[in-house]
């Protein structure tokens, strides 16, 4: 079982973390402003947009993978970029999968609180930017939750990256696609070992984030 704990496994873990961090970061950069904007914006068809967002939050990874595959395949519209079966393709698929989730959670949190926060900011005489900063600070718990949810989804997802990444050894093989492969090979022991490892890594990442956050709050109180 332990023969997997080698350079190859380390490569797989690094790739998984790199991919997950990158897709979560891009999705947060896109999804948070989008969610905040969606809450404040007023236009016809907004309810439809929200309903579409809700649907995309539950979009099956396999379908997202297929769509990205069709876009990136050689005869597809973006085939000339040669991105299929690359790290970038996996990040792209994950961004499409996770951005709606982050956007949706942020939208819901904002819809629940932003009206009060905006009124309050106005009574305090905050300008536009000060209001935005206040809103983000006041919603920071919800934003954190959105990012963590997106991160978890990115880390555990297998359907989309299997299709667009191709599970190529030393290249696009991640922890989840490895688990899927080990299962196909009938090597259940190693699949479980990798599964536990994946969960422990996810747990360690959560622990790290909550430690950082606690430190942040403590410095707040030392005013």
């Amino acid at each position, binding site marked *: 079982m332990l023969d997997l704990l080698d350079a190859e496994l380390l490569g797989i873990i690094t790739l998984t973390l790199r991919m997950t961090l990158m897709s979560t970061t891009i999705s947060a950069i896109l999804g948070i402003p989008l969610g905040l904007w969606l809450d404040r914006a007023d236009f016809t068809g907004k309810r439809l947009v929200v309903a579409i967002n809700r649907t995309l939050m539950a979009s099956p990874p396999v379908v997202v993978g297929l769509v990205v595959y069709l876009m990136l395949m050689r005869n597809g519209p973006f085939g000339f970029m040669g991105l299929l079966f690359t790290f970038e393709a996996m990040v792209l698929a994950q961004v499409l999968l996770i951005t709606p989730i982050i956007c949706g959670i942020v939208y819901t949190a904002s819809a629940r609180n932003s009206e009060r926060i905006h*009124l309050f900011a106005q009574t305090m*005489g905050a300008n536009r930017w000060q209001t935005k900063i206040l809103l983000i600070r006041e919603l920071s718990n919800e934003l954190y939750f959105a990012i963590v949810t997106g991160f978890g989804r990115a880390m555990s997802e297998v359907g989309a990256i299997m299709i667009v990444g191709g599970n190529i050894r030393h290249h696009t093989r991640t922890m989840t696609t490895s688990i899927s492969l080990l299962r196909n090979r009938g090597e259940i022991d190693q699949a479980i070992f990798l599964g536990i490892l994946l969960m422990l890594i996810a747990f360690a990442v959560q622990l790290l984030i909550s430690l950082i956050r606690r430190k942040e709050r403590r410095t707040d109180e030392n*005013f």
Partner: protein
Amino acid sequence: MKISKLKKTLGAFSLEIEHLSLTPGKIYGIIGPNGSGKTTLMKLMAGLLPPDSGSIDWPGLTPRDITMVFKKPYLIHDTVLRNLTYPLTLRGLPPDPATVDHYLTLADLQKYRNAYAPGLSSGEQQKLSLIRAMIFSPKLTFIDETFSNLDMESAARFERLILDRQQKDPATYVICAHQLSHIHRLCDEVLFLSNGRIEAQGTTEDILLHPEHPLLQQYLQFVQMQ
């Protein structure tokens, strides 16, 4: 300060103010039964709610000169101290420690200065939101029901503070309260609001002690019985 032909409809309720003018430096009271539109009128006047039609004109005042203390105060997810100094921070003003201490003592919050503000009791939250609205000396302050929920001693202290400040540096206040004693002690003039209309308006004496309008008489009887 003038309001004319103001109209606002919220669902089944509609507020219509033909004409209203306020004199700077005076304290106004708004009374009226629940659902008469007190909060809506205050929000409209404070610029927190856009009117359907009509105009509100505060010559010489910018939004930064106007504040409102809500029935349910909003406290930022931070310490009491940071909440109190927040309006100063927004204006880039360094908080004066003596002033900060003065207000914290006034609100009995000295010992909680570094506590998490949303964790305070509701009375403490209201006192904090009051001192937070006063610390930056706005020219026009709306106070929605906040006094009614304070204990007698705190309410009296805040009343005294407002009256003292009026002596030195007069500002305009619009206060709504169910307890007429606060209105009586604080206000120069009172509006009686019923069903979205101003039914009576006059000096505090006239409105509270010599009411002429039948709805007002009815309302005052009702409130005094309680």
